[in-house]
């Protein structure tokens, strides 16, 4: 029983991070309708950034998360500006297929350049809290997971506030609801896309930094997260931040319980099966709004 509860808690904590990564993907997918296969590769870049800062400069990951977030803002911004925007401008409409192929090409490049530079070793870090646990009511909770979860939750709340209360946030939401109407109201949609990509990058940078203390760093680490993130985004409902966070937690619980009681590889396929089922039966997801 204790094992069950601990697995559930560990699943919730990991799921919170999944949800956080999915929120950043959902922002880009939901607003600009861009299927960004390179999302995982950007995530990996941020993880390596935090890793090297920690190894070479001995800066704590939670502090360097700010650097990673800032770096990924510009990375995302120019990623959109240099590669995706020309295609969107040329094809005049949302051109998802061309963009999927483009971003998968960029993913191949980024991942394999990282492989050339850093090799295929699984790197882990040692920090003051790696492997430390808190004992709460007889349950052991890993410290870095708990910290990552809480910080992710706070950042998601801040993102929600940003989207609701600021002008740029309102512009982002307007563009996601109806691009043409937003244009007619004088919103520069391409600028909104770039900013959205940048903001998604910020979230991704934070998520990467929160993961480094208790996970491995590897050139292909992003692949583990990117497909799962798409599953979570669809499960939670496109464009819904709360939905993505909740769906992340659900996926985390399934994974953690499954790894303990069934078989971790089969659980991975179970998640894909849920994904297909969800797309077919209820494509709007848990909290997505009906839109047409």
């Amino acid at each position, binding site marked *: 029983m204790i094992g069950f509860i601990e697995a559930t808690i560990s699943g919730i904590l990991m799921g919170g991070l999944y949800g956080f990564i999915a929120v950043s993907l959902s922002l880009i997918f939901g607003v600009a309708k861009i299927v960004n296969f390179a999302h995982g590769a950007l995530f990996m870049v941020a993880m390596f950034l935090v890793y090297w800062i920690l190894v070479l400069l001995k800066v704590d990951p939670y502090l360097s998360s700010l650097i990673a977030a800032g770096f990924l803002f510009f990375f995302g911004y120019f990623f959109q500006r240099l590669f995706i925007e020309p295609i969107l401008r040329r*094809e005049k409409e949302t051109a998802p*297929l*061309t963009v999927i192929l*483009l971003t998968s090409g*960029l993913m191949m490049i980024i991942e394999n350049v990282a492989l050339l530079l850093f090799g295929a070793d699984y790197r882990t870090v040692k920090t003051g809290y790696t492997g430390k646990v808190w004992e709460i009511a007889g349950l052991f909770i890993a410290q870095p997971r708990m910290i990552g979860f809480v910080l992710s939750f706070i950042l998601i709340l801040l993102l929600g506030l940003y989207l609701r209360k600021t002008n740029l946030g309102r512009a982002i939401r307007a563009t996601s609801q109806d691009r043409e109407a937003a244009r007619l109201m004088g919103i520069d949609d391409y600028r909104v896309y770039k900013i959205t990509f940048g903001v998604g990058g910020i979230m991704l940078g934070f998520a990467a930094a929160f993961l480094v203390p208790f996970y491995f760093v590897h050139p292909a680490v992003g692949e583990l997260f990117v497909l799962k993130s798409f599953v979570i985004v669809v499960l939670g409902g496109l464009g819904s931040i709360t939905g993505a966070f909740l769906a992340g937690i659900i996926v985390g619980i399934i994974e953690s319980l499954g790894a303990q009681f069934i078989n971790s590889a089969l659980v991975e396929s179970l998640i894909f099966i849920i994904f297909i089922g969800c797309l077919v039966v209820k494509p709007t997801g848990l909290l997505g709004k009906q839109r047409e």
Partner: protein
Amino acid sequence: MSWNRTLFALAVLAAVLFPLVVRDPYFLHATITVLLFAFLGSSWNIIGGLAGQHSFGHSAFLGIGAYVSTILFIYWNVPPFLGMIIGGIIAAIASIGIGYPCFKLRGPYFALSTLAFTEIFRIIATTTEQVGPVDIKGAAGILISFRPGNSFVNFQFAEKAYYYYIILAMLILILFIHNWIEKSRWGLYLAAIRDNEDAARSIGINARRFKILALMISAFFGAMAGTFYAQFFLYIEPTLFSSALSIEILLIAIVGGAGTLMGPFLGSLILTPISELTRTYLGGTYAGVQLIIYGGVLVAIMMFAPQGIIPPLAKRYRMLFERRA
């Protein structure tokens, strides 16, 4: 029209004579790989090009074909040529199961759901060690022991030229089928669905049925390529089901020109040698270089020639002839 036919006959003649001139086994091996991927790209082209449904799950069919014929061959001595047909039929049946839910979706959702399907297959193949009496060997993959001599029953040949002629015949067959579909009434339905599915449905085209039919044919030939792959390399593993391989296949078709007859061939002619050469000369030390080049080509094509190489070329070619005439 007669010009095209003459050109085609000349190309086939050159291809038939090719192994008589080129004796170098390494070069012949590379050529066979080029033709195999041209065939794979062409089989994807039926669903991805003619019907415009960019499936990210084509490797599922390749894997089914490879595993079915190999298991039948090793455990029950079924000749792989027969196994090829059985694998093709199983893949076609599986494609109904995949197509039925996935064709409810469009664009990126369709791509993602087909990708999820092939990943499910990969995970199952990786984790399954044994099914009844059959040893699938999970992640380790299955080695096919070589039986010496040139035998059509075993689909194993000491001389590579045999493999060359088989894959060449398969490629010519699929090009004929592509051409036939494109010109048929059904091909026009597919083109209508590709260009505007809602409009096609509004004039009474049963879009989903025709898309599933196209997927079944595509799957059948994809599985045939799987059997050829298994018998040529004599080793199969779960990565045959991977989405990365799917992306490689659709890349070949798209770089050449999705939907065009010779697009996959041209794409394979450009891309497969790159991967063969980097694999041979850079090998283990720079394992990722091939994929960096692939990624670069993909990005460049998407940014500067999203229709692939053939359509702009065809335009020039046509202009050339019009000027002469």
